[in-house]
């Protein structure tokens, strides 16, 4: 029972990281570094709550994804069309997200840092499995977004490795000049990658606001957008790798909740567990990571 509780808690903590990390896979495979993912999660949590407050959770989810994509569009215009430094643009996106949500929250909810309570999606009991006592915490009363996130892993893998779109996306990230020579629209592929990442990050933000807490609180993303980027690198730019990395982060968080505070271990050390564990795994287990060859380099036609 304790074990399945721990796993269920890990999963809940891992899902926002996983969704954003899958988005990061799309954008980085297309050769665009997107550290604005944190900001896209923030607008996702705010717009998700806003949409759900007025028109219900489904509309909230749509609005959250649209908001994430809007910021992603700005990032794409900056970095792909104008070839602005991708890190600089990402930082600007994060600041913009933070400020705009605070401003809009004040204007709409009359409170700068929180929204009223909002409704989430109906929770699901997975049939058959929910009957097994041991699995109960894992499969009963599950948020549909958790299931969606898990299904997205093989789907993303399929799209990236087995479809024409995926092949073109990867080629643009590896060698845009060659791709361009073959008649692939490099700019369009990069836009697609960045927009997909914004959509997934927005969804991830909406998960936090609608499914986990039932309310938007400023700063509720707590830097998970950055952790998602780390998870993606950790997972070697592969969807399945991102899943394991996100689960590791979620697991170590859930574990740190469960270490009993006692005389032996000082409290601050317990709070360090997720980060220490991550460092240990990074240092010990992970093999050499290989980013896409043209990752982070702006592409210009006629560039040598």
């Amino acid at each position: 029972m304790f074990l399945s509780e721990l796993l269920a808690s890990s999963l809940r903590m891992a899902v926002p990281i996983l969704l954003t990390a899958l988005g990061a896979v799309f954008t980085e495979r297309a050769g665009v570094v997107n550290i604005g993912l944190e900001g896209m999660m923030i607008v996702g949590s705010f717009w998700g709550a806003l949409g759900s407050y007025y028109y219900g959770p489904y509309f909230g989810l749509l609005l959250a994804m649209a908001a994430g994509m809007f910021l992603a569009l700005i990032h794409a215009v900056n970095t792909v069309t104008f070839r602005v430094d991708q890190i600089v643009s990402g930082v600007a996106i994060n600041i913009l997200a933070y400020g705009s949500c605070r401003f809009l929250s004040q204007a709409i909810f009359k409170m700068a840092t929180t929204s009223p309570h909002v409704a989430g999606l109906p929770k699901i009991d997975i049939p058959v499995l929910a009957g097994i006592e041991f699995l109960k915490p894992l499969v009963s009363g599950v948020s549909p977004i958790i299931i969606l996130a898990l299904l997205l892993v093989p789907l993303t893998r399929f799209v990236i490795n087995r479809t024409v779109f995926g092949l073109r996306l990867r080629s643009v990230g590896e060698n845009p000049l060659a791709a361009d020579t073959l008649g692939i629209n490099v700019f369009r592929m990069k836009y697609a990658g960045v927009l997909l990442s914004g959509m997934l990050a927005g969804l991830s933000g909406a998960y936090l606001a609608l499914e986990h807490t039932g309310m938007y609180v400023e700063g509720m993303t707590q830097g998970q957008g950055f952790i998602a980027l780390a998870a993606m690198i950790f997972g070697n730019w592969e969807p399945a790798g991102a899943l394991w990395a996100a689960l590791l982060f979620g697991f170590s968080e859930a574990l740190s909740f469960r270490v009993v505070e006692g005389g032996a271990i000082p409290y601050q050390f317990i709070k360090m567990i997720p980060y220490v564990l991550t460092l240990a795994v990074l240092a010990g287990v992970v093999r050499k990571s290989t980013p896409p060859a043209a990752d982070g380099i702006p592409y210009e036609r006629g560039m040598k």
Partner: protein
Amino acid sequence: MKVRKILAVGLIFLLVAALLVGCSKQEQQPQQQQQQGQQAPETEKLKVGLVFDVGGRGDLSFNDSAYAGLERAAEDFADKIEVEYREPSGGGQDREQLLRLLAENGYDLIFGVGFLFTEHIQKVSQEFPDVKFGLIDGFIDGLDENSNVTCLLFKEHEGSFLVGAAAAMKSKTGKIGFVGGMKTPLIERFEVGYMAGAKYVNPNIEILSDYIGTTGEAFKDPVKGKELALKQFKAGADVVYHASGASGVGVIEAAAAEKKLAIGVDSDQSLTAKEDQRPYILTSMLKSVDVSVYETIKSLVEGNFKGGYSVFGLAENGVSYAVNDYNKELISDIQPKLDELKDKIIKGEIKVPVDKKEYQEFEKSLFK
């Protein structure tokens, strides 16, 4: 290439236009203010400002309570004062700037809501000796009646003692929980008061205790608040008390999901919770921040503002537990006992511990 150039030039043009529009608006504002001043030159109002803590207005807890006091004062003394509030951004790094901004704009009384303002108010109050400051929850050493700072302090441990007793009496499993925000001596006071109250009515009760984090961010992390509460419920606790500001929304959400009980803090959280969460809120530890804010403004209006310290405990009705339409049936059977404990604390028959050390002595005295 050409398209790009046109776009870039267009963007610059837009920016310049926005700047110009912004400037012209600012030019208009002072004129309006002058006109207003000319219309009513005699009613010089006192200006009262308030800067919120992390979590901000709408945390349904601590800050909202302070805001309620400010609002009530603004209504009651509408012809004598004007009020204004500011919310610090993010981790609250701009607390000091906001205080200074209000002081420079000629505010007569400025509140800092929360212990995190302690050093900032200490600093700013010395730079602006003519401005009065109210510091909620914070303690500055060496103040007297003539100081321009008044510290508004609460005996949270006394109120927490009562809700701890309530939790222990309502618990069927013999296990109860506590979720704190940022681990500081202030929040530990809630924790030990709660533990002492629970042990007092049931020496065998087991108390699970967790903190969300070690920074101010811990007061606005409902995700972790919920996970910690869920963990405690799954471990067998059936009542969980939180002292974690806006993170507590997650604790109440967890209680509703698990169909167990939560205890709110600072404000009466039954009133602000979602309809379907209300049956799962046993009570709230009320900390009358609103009363302290109101009384301080009142003293300023009446011209008898005093610096120094005001302490609000059970005897002063500064802390108590909440009874409302939603929990009165739930709590009615234990109310006589709670009121009895309250009397004992006021009379000094029970001395509620304020830190871990005193708590250990308290616990020993119970088993004698």
